[in-house]
């Protein structure tokens, strides 16, 4: 049962990154791809009906973490106290900027929120990446099952690393580039004209950056966390997922040349999912490694909730996720096609 919940959480997190990732990406790029007010409103209209629902994947994932692995939730969330609070502030600012921007006509008002939207989205992408970096690298978990991570030390690796060191920053940058590319592909799919043209151009350039950073990050991760390589080596599922990463990496540039606009976006979804799933598979059964002593690691065995909870939870989860997928398919179908702010900008 614990294994099932480990997979569920990994899946929910991957779904979150794919979904909220495209609106983070749109936020990172909108100053570049959309110059006039009308173009900016097009970008916002493209993500408007979705962003709140996308964020719910994070909340639901968090709820499931408390439920299935309360110890890991307690240790992780209290250990990253300040960085998580900053994440919250960014999420607040981002949500407010999306919703409030177009309610007032003044150009100053709108420029202000455009700036906030850009900053909050960019920092969120970097912080998400850095968080993943921390999970891969491990944190200074002690014998009582808690840790406290300083924001930064000297950016070097040690048994008491900061939340930000060279490795987590590198993963942060990778996330930034990858989500920016993801957002560009989404905007390319949803818009026409100038925004479409600029998004296509940027997607190509961002792809190169993603590729370079990915090679670097893979090498660094293997160095920082030996479990990663041995995990991949030992688990055939991880090989399949690694092939998925490669296939997506090839599919993005080749499909970008063709006219089918959905293909590169879906390839980018595939890239994110297979990359995250491969990482999770390689690290399993560890949820949070200790940099102090492997005996203090939190894993699916020592962090899980009671058997009955996990049992009944699975039934609830299946029903709920089937409903949620239903809603989301319906939502995305209702708003399929290019956005046209003259007709459906009901906001």
């Amino acid at each position, binding site marked *: 049962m614990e294994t099932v919940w480990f997979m569920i959480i990994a899946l929910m997190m991957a779904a979150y990154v794919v979904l909220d990732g495209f609106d983070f990406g749109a936020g990172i790029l909108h100053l570049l791809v959309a110059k006039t007010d009308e173009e900016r409103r097009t970008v916002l209209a493209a993500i408007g009906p979705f962003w709140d629902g996308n964020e719910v994947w994070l909340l*639901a994932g968090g709820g499931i973490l408390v439920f*299935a692995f309360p110890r890991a939730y307690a240790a992780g*969330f209290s250990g990253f106290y300040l960085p998580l609070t900053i994440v919250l502030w960014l999420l607040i600012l981002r949500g407010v900027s999306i919703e*409030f921007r177009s309610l007032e006509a003044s150009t100053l008002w709108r420029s202000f929120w455009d700036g906030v939207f850009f900053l909050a989205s960019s920092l969120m992408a970097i912080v998400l990446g850095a968080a993943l970096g921390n999970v891969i690298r491990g944190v200074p978990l002690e014998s009582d099952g808690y840790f406290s991570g300083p924001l930064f030390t000297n950016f070097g690796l040690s048994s008491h690393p900061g939340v930000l060191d060279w490795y987590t920053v590198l993963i942060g940058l990778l996330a930034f580039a990858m989500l920016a590319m993801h957002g560009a592909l989404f905007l390319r799919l949803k818009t026409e004209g100038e925004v479409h043209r600029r998004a296509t151009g940027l997607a190509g350039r961002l792809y190169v950056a993603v590729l370079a950073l990915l090679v670097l990050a893979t090498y660094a991760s293997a160095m920082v966390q030996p479990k990663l390589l041995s995990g991949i080596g030992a688990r055939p599922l991880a090989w399949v997922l690694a092939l998925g990463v490669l296939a997506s990496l090839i599919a993005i540039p080749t499909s970008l040349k063709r006219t089918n606009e959905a293909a590169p976006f879906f390839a980018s979804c595939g890239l994110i999912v297979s990359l995250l799933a491969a990482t999770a598979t390689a690290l399993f059964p560890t949820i949070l490694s200790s940099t102090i002593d492997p005996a203090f690691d939190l894993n699916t065995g020592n962090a899980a909730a009671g058997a*009955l909870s996990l049992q009944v939870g699975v039934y609830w989860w299946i029903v709920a996720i089937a409903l949620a997928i239903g809603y989301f398919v319906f939502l995305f179908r209702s*708003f399929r096609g290019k956005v046209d702010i003259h007709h*459906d900008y009901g906001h």
Partner: protein
Amino acid sequence: MDAVSWNRFQFGFLVTYHYLFPTLTMGLALLIFFMKLVAYKSGDERYDHAATFWAKIFGINFAVGVVTGIPLEFQFGTNWARFSNYAGGVIGLTLALEGLFAFFAESAFLGLFLYGKQKLSAKMHLFASFMVFLGSWLSGYFIIATNAFMQHPVGYRVGPRGLLLSDMWAYLLNPWAFWQYLHNMTSAVVAASFVVAAVGALYTLSDRHKEQARVFLKVGVVAGLISCILILFPTGDQNGKMVAEYQPAALAAMEGKYETSDKAELAIIGQPDSVNKRLDNPIIVPYVLSYLAYGSFGAKVKGMNDFPKDELPDNTELLYYGYHIMAGLGTIFIALMLTSATKLWRGTLETSRAWLWMLMLAFPFPFIAVTMGWMTVELGRQPWLVYGLLRTIHGTSPKVAGGSVAFTTLGFMGLYFVVGVLYLYLIHRQIAKGPIDFAQAHTIDEAGA
């Protein structure tokens, strides 16, 4: 202040602030669905316009509810790690179900409801508004069930590392959750009715949007009257009986009762003096407390003097005032809505300017009553975090310093202040724009004006 106090203050501040928004969200969701339903059934355009107008306000309100809600979901882990660790295996169920069942439905259908009027058929749009209502009311249930477990734990077993779920249905159908939920949801309808009626009164008084104002007044006053009665009886009454049964120390503090006695009196007004252990300047009604709490005029009610100090809530004064302000306002609300409804029925409401002024100015008070009600619940639970099982002082995060919590509290306060000012400004603008102009608002927006 020590770390526990900072943590308590932070949680109290964040949740109180957050809850101002869902109160309106949940109440309006019901009223909007009702307006859409009337419009759909009768084809009365005015109701459709009214729903569209309130949907706009709903959207702004919802956005603030969402952004202030996300920090709360994190709070359990960041600030109350030992509590999450201890109780997570039980309360995690409802927190997860809330996200999975309620928030998904709510957010997906809200997107459809707010952005999809042109894309959906009238029937689907009505359905979207129903799902928004259902999602928000479900989310209310899950979070209340979580809180009810903290008030009155059921369906659990104590395991080696903390609490384990032993009976899922007992946990989900906690009797405490039942009455708390009904009372709380009714209070959301009270708040939304007061807001709708206040805008109706405002338009009538300023002689604008007369047609819409009539709809608002009617919906607001009728829903207001029904919900104001339900909030006292049976829901408020039953809540009180549960407190009397399961949290007798909280009851004594809520009522400002120091001495134990049979035939206990109910204090209507008075100031608790916790040094000399008496109620100053009291106005009392004999026998009534025994009856309200235990259903018989002779029942014995235990006073605060007879509880050990470590079982009494630590802020008995605020608890007392919280409860009295809520119940006092509730009584006034019934009088206000009864009179308004009589005037509405006679057709004189629109011309009684003095009364319209009252309705217009009354809208903040339900929010005060709601906040006071929650103060009563949460202060009354002290010194326990999970009643009888885990003390509040044992629930915090072991490695988070009080100073860090102070820092983030100040940060949240600053950020929320700005968000609050913007919120009021935008709502004000929406109300100033009015419902009729709404149909043209798109065109203005499109011109980029």
